[in-house]
């Protein structure tokens, strides 16, 4: 299976990355994907995502291992930003190419749930009154728990 896992320090175009991913997997019956962006609500001016070199990318690779082990895929892409981002900027792109639709969907869904609550990122938001550290929403924890068998 072709895998493309990247921790990005600069802005990226999810549309372009998806187009290349689709081209790289002409034989897959379907491609499911998710793009997460900085939400412009709550007066957020800047979002900062902090990674730790020795854990973050290795953790993303481990996640990809787990996804590959659970679902039958032709290809898997996980691109995740780190650093400072403005509202509307893409943070994460996950895409899975598979012969069967359900495999592609579940792989992306699982990877996103994992990334949102269990991956090695720390996050803070700059609002009018300065920086605030963010923890995962309870919903994100619940989402991730769905997969614990």
């Amino acid at each position, binding site marked *: 299976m072709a895998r493309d896992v990247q921790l990005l320090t600069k802005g990226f175009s999810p549309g372009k990355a998806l187009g290349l991913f689709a081209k790289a997997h002409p034989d897959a019956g379907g491609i499911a994907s998710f793009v*997460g962006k900085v939400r412009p609500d709550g007066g957020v001016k800047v979002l900062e*995502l*902090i990674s*730790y070199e*020795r*854990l973050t990318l*290795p953790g993303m690779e481990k996640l990809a291992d787990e996804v590959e082990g659970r679902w039958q895929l032709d290809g898997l892409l996980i691109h*995740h*930003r780190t650093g400072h981002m403005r509202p509307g900027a893409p*943070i*994460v792109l996950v895409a899975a190419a598979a012969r069967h639709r359900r495999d592609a969907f579940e792989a992306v869904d699982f990877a996103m749930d994992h*990334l*949102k*609550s*269990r*991956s*090695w*990122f*720390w*996050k*803070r938001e700059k609002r009018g009154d300065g920086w605030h*550290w*963010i*923890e*995962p929403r309870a919903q*994100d924890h619940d989402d991730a728990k769905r997969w614990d068998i």
Partner: protein
Amino acid sequence: MAVTVVFIGKLADLAGEGEREVAAPLIWAGLADALGAEIAAAVSDDRTKIAVNGEVLADKTALSASDGDEVALLPPVSGG
């Protein structure tokens, strides 16, 4: 004869810097002496983890870092 301590997220705010060199060896009981009571208290929080050279300790009180090691103090992750 130093251990590099990396402060992540909130802990970097508390430390006022991203990393610091402290004298080796560094063990759990020596954290307050090496880093100050405030940081040691924050690291005691159940949800704070410790990694040595990129390996997260299952039991952080077993911390035992030698010269050249990198010790990362990890607050709860926020998710991406």
